[in-house]
């Protein structure tokens, strides 16, 4: 075993890293008030030092996993000698302690990134931002060290073999899902720190919004990929074919995503028109607070959820305390400094400002719906009003209509102009696309009805198709006009990003809407030689066999799917039995396709030769994740725009910039 990367080394590195973060929280902040340039400059090197030591600690823990060091309790609880090597590595963040270490590591990465790429920021602003990030890092570093140390040993009697990684987590998407989600969650600390620094020096000009935008979009991209990856994992790994369950932990990631989406849009208005400034600051605070709340919900065990693998109320209380300090102190700061933030320009009812404000309102209402639905069971329990759970009907009741309203406003905001626009100018370019999308919606749902049967003709399908066509027609029209007046290469990269991301939203809604409207499923009892018919497909149960792989044995069914006497695919759903753990796992078999997925999962054995089997035909379900990929890619393009890489802006240019940027896009 590598002595240099021992668990003790990791423990020490973590302590040093947290101490550096502590200094990073104090010195640059003090320097920014006393005007000591040297102290302020230290922020950047402290951030890099902190990253080095936290990364070292992370390497030590990874090393303990890869070398099967079961003297470390955390390793013994979450790994096993039989585990393939890549799962041993991903087991590092499979439970509380390790995932928290990953949290701290990612925070250090973001902080170091701000330190390195923030050279165009004024020193005073940068040092305050780094100090805020340092404070957050200290909070989580101490949490890690005092309540959930991953390097704890189990002397004197270490187990011979570990308890194994939860089989649900032994999956490729789960290697990537938590880190990506954490990059998003934790990245929200950056716009948060920017907002606090802005409050500290009462500076909310368009330059500030310009600095904040790429960081906000970047963490939003990670959050988007993380959420969609999680949904994809739930779809094929949980084995029962849903893609979103309104599980409290899913909600915990959805809420910061919604707020950040609102933040991105309100930052645009703040940067270009100087409006909604206090609202923008408030959104930045809420986005990070909700990501902390998410950490609390996932890690405290207060919720019944697929993610609540192991929980400890004490840890929950620490995060809740941390959360209330963060929210309380920042809101107090906001209350003191907020009134300074007055809007400077006016706008009419059909301007882009108005549409962005409506977008923000819808997203905020959506967050309120999800927040109340998620917290209501906790509140009800805390006040002794009974133990309840809130089911999907509640969320769908609000979320589905809100999504459609949002879709209607998306292209309006993209197509309208800033400032005082007359109503006539808007209605003149509105009628044609409106009629066209209504027509497309009707044609689409009729085609669907012809293809999947009468279910396709539901109201949901018609509304979905119409709204999605509306977004497509309007965006493509706008795109064509832009190309006409400009050219491909002259259009800024962020414009392409915007188009791609919004089309992605429409594609996701198309997938979700049509899946809900026309997806069919059936649970059947089948034995060898039986067949079942669903949605025009014939599922023939031809064989069942048993075998084993490295750390589990499995039962595999063979189901031949055909349509109109033509064989389409052979699906092999499995039931897995892990050796280290009495747990059984369902591995669904999927035949993917852009137009439809065939999905078969094997239930429990009923008697000697009959099995419970679930069959699905899911039209357009892939569109959900295709849209997710487009949204993330669009965000990535937006981050790459050269607008955010401008050199340091001197105060004289700034006045020019705000005039110039108003005419851009």
């Amino acid at each position, binding site marked *: 075993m590598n002595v240099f990367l021992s668990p003790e080394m990791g423990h020490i590195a973590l302590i040093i890293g947290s101490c550096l973060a502590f200094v990073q929280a104090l010195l640059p902040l003090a320097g920014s008030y006393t005007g000591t340039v040297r102290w302020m400059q230290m922020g950047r090197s402290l951030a890099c030092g902190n990253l080095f030591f936290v990364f070292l600690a992370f390497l030590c823990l990874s090393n303990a996993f890869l070398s099967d060091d079961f003297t470390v309790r955390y390793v013994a609880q979450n790994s096993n000698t039989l585990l393939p090597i890549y799962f041993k590595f991903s087991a590092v963040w499979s439970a509380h302690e390790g995932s928290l270490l990953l949290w701290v590591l990612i925070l250090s990465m973001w902080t170091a990134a701000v330190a390195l790429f923030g050279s165009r920021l004024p020193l005073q602003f940068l040092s305050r931002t780094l100090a805020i990030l340092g404070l957050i890092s200290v909070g989580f570093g101490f949490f890690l060290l005092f309540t959930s140390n991953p390097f704890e040993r189990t002397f004197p009697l270490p187990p011979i073999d570990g308890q194994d990684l939860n089989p649900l987590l032994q999956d490729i998407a789960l290697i990537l899902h938590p880190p990506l989600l954490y990059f998003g969650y934790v990245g929200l600390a950056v716009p948060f720190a920017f907002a606090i620094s802005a409050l500290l020096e009462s500076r909310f000009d368009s330059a500030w919004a310009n600095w904040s935008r790429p960081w906000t979009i970047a963490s939003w991209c990670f959050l988007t990929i993380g959420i969609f990856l999680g949904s994809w994992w739930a779809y094929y790994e949980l084995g029962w074919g849903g893609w979103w369950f309104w599980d409290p932990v899913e909600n915990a990631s959805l809420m910061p995503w919604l707020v950040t989406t609102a933040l991105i849009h309100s930052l645009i208005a703040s940067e270009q028109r100087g409006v909604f400034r206090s609202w923008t600051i408030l959104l930045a605070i809420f986005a990070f607070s909700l990501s902390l709340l998410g950490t609390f919900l996932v890690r405290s*065990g207060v919720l019944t959820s697929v993610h609540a693998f192991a929980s400890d109320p004490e840890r929950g209380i620490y995060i809740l305390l941390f959360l209330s300090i963060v929210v309380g102190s920042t809101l107090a700061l906001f209350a003191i400094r907020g009134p300074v933030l007055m809007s400077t320009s006016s706008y009419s009812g059909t301007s882009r400002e108005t549409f962005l404000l409506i977008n923000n309102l819808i997203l905020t209402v959506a967050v309120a719906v999800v927040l109340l639905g998620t917290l209501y069971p906790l509140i009800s329990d805390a006040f002794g009003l009974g*133990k309840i759970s*809130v089911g999907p009907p*509640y969320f769908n009741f609000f979320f589905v209509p809100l999504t459609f309203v949002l879709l209607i406003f998306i292209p309006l905001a993209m197509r309208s102009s800033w400032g005082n626009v007359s109503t006539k100018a808007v209605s003149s370019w509105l009628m044609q696309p409106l009629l066209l999308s209504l027509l497309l919606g009707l044609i689409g749902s009729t085609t669907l009805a012809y293809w999947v049967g009468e279910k396709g003709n539901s109201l949901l399908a018609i509304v979905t198709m119409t709204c999605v066509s509306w977004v497509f027609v309007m965006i493509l029209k706008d795109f064509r006009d832009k190309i006409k007046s400009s050219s491909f290469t002259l259009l800024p990269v962020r414009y392409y990003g915007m188009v791609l991301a919004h089309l992605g939203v429409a594609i996701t809604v198309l997938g979700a809407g049509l899946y809900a409207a026309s997806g069919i499923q059936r*649970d059947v009892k089948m034995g060898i030689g039986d067949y079942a018919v669903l949605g025009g497909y014939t599922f023939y149960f031809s064989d069942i066999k048993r075998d084993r792989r490295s750390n589990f044995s499995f039962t595999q069914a063979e189901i031949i799917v055909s349509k109109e006497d033509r064989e389409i695919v052979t699906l092999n759903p499995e039931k897995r039995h892990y050796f280290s753990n009495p747990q*059984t796992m369902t591995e669904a078999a999927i035949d993917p396709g852009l137009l439809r997925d065939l999905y078969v999962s094997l*239930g*429990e054995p009923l008697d000697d030769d009959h099995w419970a089997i679930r069959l699905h035909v899911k039209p357009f379900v892939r569109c959900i994740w295709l849209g997710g990929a487009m949204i993330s890619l669009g965000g990535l393009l937006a981050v790459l725009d050269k607008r955010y890489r401008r050199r340091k802006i001197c105060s004289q240019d700034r006045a020019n910039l705000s005039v110039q940027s108003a005419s851009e896009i």
Partner: protein
Amino acid sequence: MMHPLRKQRMQWICLILISTSVATALIAYMLRQNANFFYTPSQIAIGQAPLGVSLRAGGEVVVGSLKRAQQSLAIEFLVSDGLHSVKVTYEGILPDLFSEGQSTVVTGKIDDQNTLHAVQVLAKHDENYTPPEIAEMYENQGI
């Protein structure tokens, strides 16, 4: 005459106030409609649970109580908290970790025979994990 900027702000504030109050009222109403309360088998046995309302119940699946239908996926089993048990019916596939002697949480409606017709059956997803409702139920009984 109000300053146009101030007038605009007033309009927005009114709009926001109205929409938030409507939204809050609607959310509160829907939450009440969709809240599934948790009842112990004892509460159901002595008639404390409302009939025909979607609710949740939980406890241990009584060993030997699981019965399957011949032709369909219909099943029935007893869920007990150690003092009383309640009959649960369900049609569909059971979760992987569902088995006799293990704890479960079911969602459904109770009919006048005091049988719970479940639309969802959950089993714990980890051998070390007990749903908080059930943990507390046993705690209150002093088990």
